[in-house]
């Protein structure tokens, strides 16, 4: 998988190249709009990570240009501008996703995975893991054969984890999906403890791992 990273801050760009490289992505780096155009001319890529504030222009203009000339690969916007308006204008222009700064590498990887999967994978209707059966169609959950009563929010949260088993999900990534736009430092922890109370049995190993300061992971 080849990814073009358009980011003007050299250190951040370098970090992303390394971080993504370690996960077996091939990364090419562009620091200006001009370089990004050249890079895209030279060789195709599977996804683009695009910063908005570039020295020689705005990333949004670049995106508009690409979409106009029929470039269809997924684009993830990386931006410090976290206002709803920016998000919407980015998505309107044809971006596939939006990740506000400061982000974590795990978060970026999760978004990139989503992007690359978006075109290909069909959503599973039934996910099973460690005795937990999540029926997306029937909206029901069973733990070790016993039905578990979950609120719709708890269900959505569990679904997110079941689709990303073994991966670290950052707090921002989760919050943004379950409670878009809401800034609340406690809510996620509250729901995690509820999920644990309902799904983990006292004997076995914990189902969810807490990564302090980063997020959670379903083991």
């Amino acid at each position: 998988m080849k990814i073009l990273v358009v980011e003007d801050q050299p250190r951040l760009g370098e970090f992303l190249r390394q971080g993504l490289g370690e996960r077996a992505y091939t990364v090419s780096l562009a620091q200006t709009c001009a370089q990004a155009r050249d890079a895209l001319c030279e060789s195709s890529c599977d996804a683009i990570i695009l910063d908005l504030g570039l020295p020689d222009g705005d990333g949004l203009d670049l995106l508009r240009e690409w979409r106009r000339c029929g470039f269809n690969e997924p684009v993830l916007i990386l931006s410090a501008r976290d206002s709803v308006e920016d998000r919407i204008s980015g998505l309107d222009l044809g971006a596939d996703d939006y990740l506000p700064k400061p982000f974590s590498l795990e978060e970026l990887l999760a978004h990139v995975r989503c992007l690359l999967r978006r075109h290909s994978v069909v959503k599973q209707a039934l996910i099973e893991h460690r005795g937990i059966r999540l029926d997306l169609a029937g909206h029901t959950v069973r733990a070790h054969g016993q039905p578990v009563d979950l609120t719709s929010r708890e269900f959505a949260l569990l679904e997110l984890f079941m689709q990303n088993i073994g991966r670290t999900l950052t707090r921002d990534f989760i919050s943004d999906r379950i409670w878009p736009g809401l800034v609340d430092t406690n809510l996620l922890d509250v729901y995690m403890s509820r999920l644990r109370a309902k799904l983990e049995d006292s004997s076995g190993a914990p189902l969810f791992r807490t990564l302090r300061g980063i997020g959670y992971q379903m083991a």
Partner: protein
Amino acid sequence: MRSIRTRIAVWYALSATVTLAILFAAGYVLLENYIDHDLDLLNRVEFEQIRARLGRDYHALTPDIIDRRIRETTNYASVLFYININIPGHGMLFYSSNLAGRPIPDIPRKHIYNASVPGIGGLRVAEFIAPPFDITVGTPTRQMHQVLRAYVEVSLALLAAMLLISAGLGFGLGDVVLRPVRLIGQTASRIRSDNLDARIPVAGVDNELSDLAKLLNQMFDRIEGAFKQMRVFTAEVSHELKTPLSLVRLHAEKLLTDGNLQGRSEEAVLVQLEELGRVSRMIDELLFISRAEAHALSLRLLPRNPHEFLRSIEGDLRALCCHRGIRLDIAYAGAGSVAIDEQRLRQVLFNLVNNALDASPPRGGVRLCSSVEQTRWCCRVEDDGPGLEDDQYEKAFDRFVRFGRAPTDTGSGLGLAICRSIIELHGGVIRAMPRPDGRGACFCFELPLADAAMGAGVAPAVTALAH
């Protein structure tokens, strides 16, 4: 008189009516003069006849003959004329029979005048000198007065009609005159942060109104410039601060995930990450408040039943309270529709409930009361905590204000400032006060109902490109 339209109508009606009244008055004077002139002519004709009757030799005639000669003419004219003949210094020589011996009053040194004879009424009098006689001829003015009275009556009726018609016309005129002004007002009220590029159409011709429109458009240009600058500024601040923050965060996380940290250093990195999160949140919150204060921000307002909205977040609020072991009571009253930006308003409720939870004593309770009244939706969050000092209720909404910080407190003091920004962007008000029964605090916001809000110019906003 409040409206300019009424004022225009009143002034128009008054000036038209007064003008007409002046014309009628002038007409009255002219008519009166004209009639007087006619009467004088009649008097003169009569006098000529009398002189013809008297003949050339009248100097020498005896009073009897004179009497006989004149009476022949005057008898048949007695309906029209009253006649006196006297010789100055010698007394009255002749009275026409209709005078019945009463003299027509004489005004010295005046030959044409109005006089009044008891029993007969007003007369138009002309005095002619035919030495040695003074011949006084009078014509009754009764008929003339009747004509004039009729004239006055008709005039008054016409004036009243004029007043009514011109008032009506004045209203129409006011409408026409004020139409461009109304147009300017409508455009100006449409111009908000989300459609700053709208301008008042300027008519091709140069007049006072097009000057005004041009001035207003120039003002809008300046405001638009300021808004754009604000947006660019916040975007730049955000970018400049958050790019390095990203780097710090990425490196700190790498340290953690690489996993060769000892206990103490791991703790230090965790603190770093936590603080980083706080700083980044604060940047967002501060930028949000500045944009909101500059009105360089638009809401995505949609009409919504407030109770439905509250029910959609009730589960989350209950989860928060339950986790702290605190009861949450929610009461709904009334029904209606309010234009709200759900995401933003949800933030307000979470901030208020979190504050209430922070203030609540163990096993306390938090109450959320939502009531839709005639024109507004009123939502209150009450707690059982210690409440605030009297002078703190207003201050609590300022930025970075926190009172009586607990050691575990990790707040930034921006929560309530954000609540106020959001509520004010919705065209509402937010207040804090002691609970009526004196225990705990009560935070309350009010939003206008959807219909009322539309009238006040808060229409569903279209999100604009923000740069």
